[in-house]
């Protein structure tokens, strides 16, 4: 019998892996909550605080969209990769005929589904509750969501290599995630922050993602207007991809 390595069979296998990841995701409600619930919780809290202040809400809605991308890709993948490595799942998969790329495609698709669901929720709430159009430039929205996903997913995988164990993962991830969202203008206009914080934030990718999303969702600035932000994200993506691939290990670290 000839070996069936056709593209269709690879797509079918990636799809199977994707469906398994979806099922397992919902069986672990605490992880599901941290992935999807935390940004929405912040959205509700800050939305209540800023109610009636349209300028603040115009900052908040794209900010939460950016935060959602980070939590569904960077945070989720950093946790997942550490757990899969530690539980020996990656090593087991590596012993099967399933190609590594097909497996990772299923895994990535799973993370992207969470991102898309989350962005959709933010758009709907933003429009209905906070009076933010959200779709001023749909092309720019798609471009920035895609770039944001690739950027933060690769950074999440790269970061997972630095995390020694599942026990340590929440501390490592939060040490990056919380300061990142606070300096990156997710909740307030970054221009109002002290200068040195602005300088730090400018080096990091999230401020640029939120900037791009704000253009797409609020001001109507298109991709061309946000080329600078896109360039910074591209540099971080390149960095993330290189280190995600380089440090990759199928095995748990030896104690």
């Amino acid at each position, binding site marked *: 019998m000839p070996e069936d390595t056709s593209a269709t069979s690879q797509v079918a296998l990636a799809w199977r892996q994707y469906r398994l990841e979806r099922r397992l995701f919902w069986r672990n409600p605490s992880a599901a909550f941290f992935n999807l619930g935390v940004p929405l919780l912040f959205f509700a809290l800050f939305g209540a605080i800023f109610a009636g202040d349209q300028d603040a809400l115009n900052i908040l809605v794209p900010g939460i969209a950016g935060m959602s991308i980070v939590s569904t890709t960077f945070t989720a993948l950093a946790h997942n990769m550490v757990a899969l490595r530690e539980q020996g799942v990656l090593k087991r998969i590596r*012993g099967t*005929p399933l190609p590594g790329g097909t497996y990772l495609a299923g895994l990535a698709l799973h993370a992207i589904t969470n991102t898309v669901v989350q962005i959709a929720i933010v758009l709907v709430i933003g429009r209905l509750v906070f009076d933010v159009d959200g779709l001023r430039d749909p092309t720019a929205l798609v471009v920035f969501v895609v770039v944001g996903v690739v950027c933060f997913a690769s950074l999440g995988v790269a970061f997972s290599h630095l995390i020694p164990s599942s026990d340590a993962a929440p501390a490592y991830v939060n040490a990056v995630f919380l300061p990142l969202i606070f300096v990156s203008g997710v909740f307030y206009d970054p221009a109002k922050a002290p200068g040195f914080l602005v300088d730090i934030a400018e080096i990091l990718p999230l401020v640029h993602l939120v900037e791009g999303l704000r253009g797409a969702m609020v001001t109507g600035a298109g991709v061309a207007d946000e080329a600078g932000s896109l360039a910074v994200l591209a540099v971080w993506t390149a960095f993330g991809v290189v280190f995600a691939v380089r440090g990759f290990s199928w095995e748990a670290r030896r104690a």
Partner: protein
Amino acid sequence: MTRDRAIEVRDLHKAYGPVEAVRGISFGVDRGEVYGLLGPNGAGKTTTVEILEGYRERTGGTVSVLGFDPEERPRALRERVGIVLQQTGIYRHIAVREALVHFAAMYPRPRDPDELIALVGLEGKEDARAKTLSGGQLRRLDLALALVGDPELVFLDEPTTGFDPAARRTAWETVRSLRALGKTVLLTTHYLEEAQALADRVAIVKGGRIVVEGAPRDLGVGASTRVRVTYRNALGEQVEHITDDPTRLLHELTAEAIERGEALDDLAVNRPTLEEVYLELTADA
């Protein structure tokens, strides 16, 4: 390679930085054979097996598994090989049957998941989540997952460590059933009994080298030229001598006894058992 062997290993070397885990191991496994690597912890068994499975890169020597170099990780090889790793690893929230169905889809000619559940004795646990299984049950799921692609060659790295005696017997029956189906099995263990019960041939590994190899029944005698001579002296005490030269020793002992007008009660000359050979060979000198 000369013969159509399932596994051929020549002068295999593996160093982890300064640690030389494998220092020139050579052996071959025929198709349909159950071959055992027996040795204490740290002997280099897992390192050897994981090189053959394509998980680790060797530092020297040649290796052929079903005619492939496992280091190149060809998919055609992975489709024909089943692996039980030393450490179990599976999604915590996956159910038993779900796992088998999922992994079965990765192979061209999978076995029936329900048949495998029965084979490894996990009936009634089909819908149980992995995190609720006991260590022994997880190990059986491991075995079922290794067999799900109906492999020609099965690697079992310490498949029964931590099993109670009943579970061990069941696992042994499964390995024997693989042998009956004509599968090739490479097994590691630190239980001598297990190697004796299952393997057609055994290599005793220590310090990254094979110290002796052969059929289990031959190892006890063939591996050692040493012979044990025991008797009860005039005071009724049990005396034991180990010697490489039993003829001379017996001559001396009997001559002295006759001179003293005594008998050597219960005089016996024994070859050491495999267990004694194993303990002697693997003892830390």
